[in-house]
């Protein structure tokens, strides 16, 4: 097997990493990830909540602890620029690994590989934010490349998926998808190559065991199964994928290209099905999962897309030349090293001109000075992380960590924000002293009716004292 050139993947990855660096830090969940990572660095891994007053002291998930620590380390080293640098690196990794796998599938045809990777780049750009989720995409892109190599006969590549899964499981809960892909690929190989069966069993067991080498142990599957099988639909990115939205259309185009390529392709693609079908199923479960399919599809589209187009044209009576893979397209290691250096320079340049401060315009910044210290504040869900970082003296009611709050706390939150019939009872029972909500939230409108004292008011938020 010839070693493909890494020049194009590295350079294109560096370019998109630099592009990703041009957005300021502003993700709603970023701040609680940063606070959690910083807390872990300072005092070890916390297994109970210390940021809220509603679930204080209760067990929390630790499934992303390494991702949080990486974000906190980046911040400790380089402040906001450090965070952006990590984001740029992760995006560069997603793009380079996706493109690398595509180029490996169609050696020496970089333009085809780039075209096949465009859906993945376009779809993943919605997730170019500062969360461990981005590391999950990079891990998945690496996984796709490894299992593709494994399908071509590389036992080492398949074995490498196990340490990859061990790292991934500590970075982000999406590692469950990786286990699924390894299992499907091993099962397909076991069917196609009977002598592979015992190795397949070992690999599947190894993949499962790798996910347990985390502080969460078997609890890692609580988060993963929650996100994949019963996504919390009230969170935008966990919603049903709308194929008429921009990311939905991109996904639909990708799925359409894959279907058409398969229908007009060479057949015998059970190995492709082992990767593409389970990933397509997972991608269709929630909007945030859409990029996985595009990443997985890139090598398939690169390998078979042009041939399928040729078949379609031949069916229509047109004659086109067969575009074979250019196996002489490999480059010397020196060229790869040069591309790595150039990519690093592009990334560094991108980070150098990146915004130096976070964009907190969508957060209630002006309310910080007026927040009452201690328990008693009911805040909007999406501002919880911001308050954890910027107002540590005021514990939150709820924040983007979601799972600790599922049940009574989220129900009570909805009752007050949405003015349900029991809202007054919840206020009294919880001892809520102030609410920080949007001016158009029902509770804010009702509070105005009732003449509650307004502590801070802007177009985006209002801080009210409960009489």
């Amino acid at each position, binding site marked *: 097997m010839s070693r493909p050139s890494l020049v194009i993947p590295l350079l294109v990855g560096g370019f998109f990493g630099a592009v990703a660096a041009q957005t300021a830090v502003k993700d709603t969940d970023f701040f609680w990830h940063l606070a959690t990572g910083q807390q872990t660095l300072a005092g070890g891994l916390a297994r109970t909540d210390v940021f809220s007053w509603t679930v204080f002291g209760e067990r929390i998930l630790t499934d992303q602890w390494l991702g949080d620590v990486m974000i906190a380390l980046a911040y400790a080293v380089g402040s906001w620029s450090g965070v952006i640098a990590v984001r740029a690196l992760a995006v560069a990794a997603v793009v380079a690994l996706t493109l690398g796998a595509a180029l490996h599938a169609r050696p020496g045809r970089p333009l085809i590989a780039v075209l096949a990777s465009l859906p993945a780049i376009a779809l993943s750009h919605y997730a170019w934010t500062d969360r461990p989720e981005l590391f999950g995409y990079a891990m998945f892109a690496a996984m796709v490349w490894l299992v593709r190599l494994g399908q071509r006969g590389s036992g080492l590549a398949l074995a490498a998926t196990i340490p990859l899964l061990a790292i991934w499981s500590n970075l982000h809960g999406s590692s469950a998808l990786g286990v699924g892909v390894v299992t499907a690929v091993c099962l397909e190989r076991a069917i196609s190559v009977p002598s592979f069966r015992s190795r397949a069993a070992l690999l599947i067991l190894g993949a499962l065991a790798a996910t347990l080498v985390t502080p969460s142990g078997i609890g890692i599957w609580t988060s993963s199964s929650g996100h994949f099988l019963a996504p919390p639909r009230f969170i935008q990115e966990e919603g049903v994928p709308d194929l008429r939205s921009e990311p939905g259309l991109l996904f*639909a185009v990708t799925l*359409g290209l894959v279907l058409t390529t*398969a229908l007009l392709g060479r057949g015998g693609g059970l190995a492709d099905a082992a990767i593409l079908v389970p990933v397509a199923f997972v991608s269709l479960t929630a909007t945030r999962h859409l990029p996985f399919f595009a990443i997985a599809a890139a090598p398939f589209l690169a390998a078979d897309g042009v041939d399928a187009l040729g078949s379609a044209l031949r*069916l229509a009576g047109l004659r086109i030349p067969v575009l074979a893979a250019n196996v002489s397209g490999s480059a010397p290691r020196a060229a790869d090293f040069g591309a790595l250096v150039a990519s690093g320079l592009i990334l560094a340049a991108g980070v150098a001109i990146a915004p130096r401060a976070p964009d907190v315009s969508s957060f209630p910044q002006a309310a910080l000075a007026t927040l009452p210290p201690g328990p008693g504040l009911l805040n909007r869900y999406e501002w919880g992380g911001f308050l954890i970082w910027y107002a540590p003296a005021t514990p939150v009611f709820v924040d983007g960590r979601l799972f600790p709050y599922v049940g009574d706390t989220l129900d009570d939150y909805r009752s007050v924000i949405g003015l349900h019939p029991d*809202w007054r009872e919840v206020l009294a029972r919880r001892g809520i002293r102030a609410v920080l909500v949007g001016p158009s939230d029902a509770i804010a*409108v009702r509070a105005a009716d009732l003449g509650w004292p307004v502590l801070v008011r802007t177009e985006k938020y209002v801080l009210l004292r409960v009489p």
Partner: protein
Amino acid sequence: MKGSTIAAVLFAVIAAGFALLAPVSDPDIFWHLASGDWMLDHAQLLDRDVFSFTRTGVSYHTGEWLGEIMLALAFRAGDWLGLELLRAACVGIGTFFAARATLRIQPHVGWAALPILGGILVARTVWGDRPQLFTVALFPIVFDLLLGARISESPRRLALLPPIFLLWANLHAAFAAGLVLVAIFVIESGLVRVRATRAPLLVALVLSVLATSANPAGPGAIAAGFGYASSSGAYVVEEGPLDELSGAGIVVAAMLLGSLTIALVLGLEGITRRLGAPLLWAGLIVPFGFLGFAIQRHAILACVVLAPFVAAGLPAAIGRPARTAPLVPRSASAVILAGCVLLLGVAAATVAPRSPNLAAYPEGALAALAARPGHLLNEYDWGGFLVRNAPEHPVFVDGRGATLFLPDVLADFDKAVGLGPGYRGILDRWRIDLVLLRPERPLAVALREDGWAVLGETARWVLLARR
């Protein structure tokens, strides 16, 4: 008679039997019935609003005038049972032709049964008593006609398409999906130069498009039909995207991803050998798979189109030989058909419900409403029920949402019931004296606290009156 035809009849009887068992309960049936009754009573088309006080006299077209008259005639002829029989007839006809189309490609009933039964399960989500029932019947008829003409290269049956579209365009706006279907067959026949069907298909498409112009909205009905297909699900749940993790979603995903697996395994040659017309399948599966996931009410259309491919492709993918349909003696066929008719007759006479299921509606509020004049702000889903059962109170809004009430009235409705800023202004502007809402609506909570009189309430509804 061919065994596959007998099998299609049996599938149709199963589906029609299930359709007979459900009582009338669709929230839109009531305003459709009221519209049909109005047209029959006045012997003229209903082209302006006569049911609401927010849009009185405003002209509109639902594109379903004939469908509404058919529903009203069925009700006049047989009361609620008449509607159930009409529903069962549409479901039975649709299932028969969907099954026949599948059995054309896969004559083995065992392999065909799985996707056909899956389609019936998905179709249950659109068995509400609305004009869309006619699409449930007509879309499979058109698909079966086209498939029959293309496979057997006998275009004579295509002459039926223009009259079908003439009828369909006046029954229900989703006829646009049928035109897309014909266009796909036209393009495929043109591309691969199928001499027998190329010109007849093109003529049939042109005549069908012209036929759809023969309706009260003229050529604008086509644009309205496509607009309807692309309308967002912001207000109407069934026009939103299909949730893969729902019952119907799992079936559609299984069929779409099953198609992908089959295509990957068989490839162009395998599909050509076993199913024929590979470009046609690519043209059908991609757009209708997209449509099924983009708009959940169209999931059934995706199932109808995907079923033949799955039924024939699955056994081919696992190496099972192709089968031909057995012939059933005429006497046996007659006995089976007579048995089916008898079975449905017994079901209609004994187990079909004789009254609607009104558990979801504020039936108990009708008496209090009748005794209290004034403008009523009502729950969206109950508008149709009130149009028919409380005609003395013109509604604020009803199921004609996107056709009649966008954007102003629905925006006011959302803001008022959600207690948005300015809700009091909306209540005053529309001079609202009565409010009939679900008790958990923020407006209901606020108005109760403000002293509006409670004229009646249950766990499902509350009727409030301004003092």
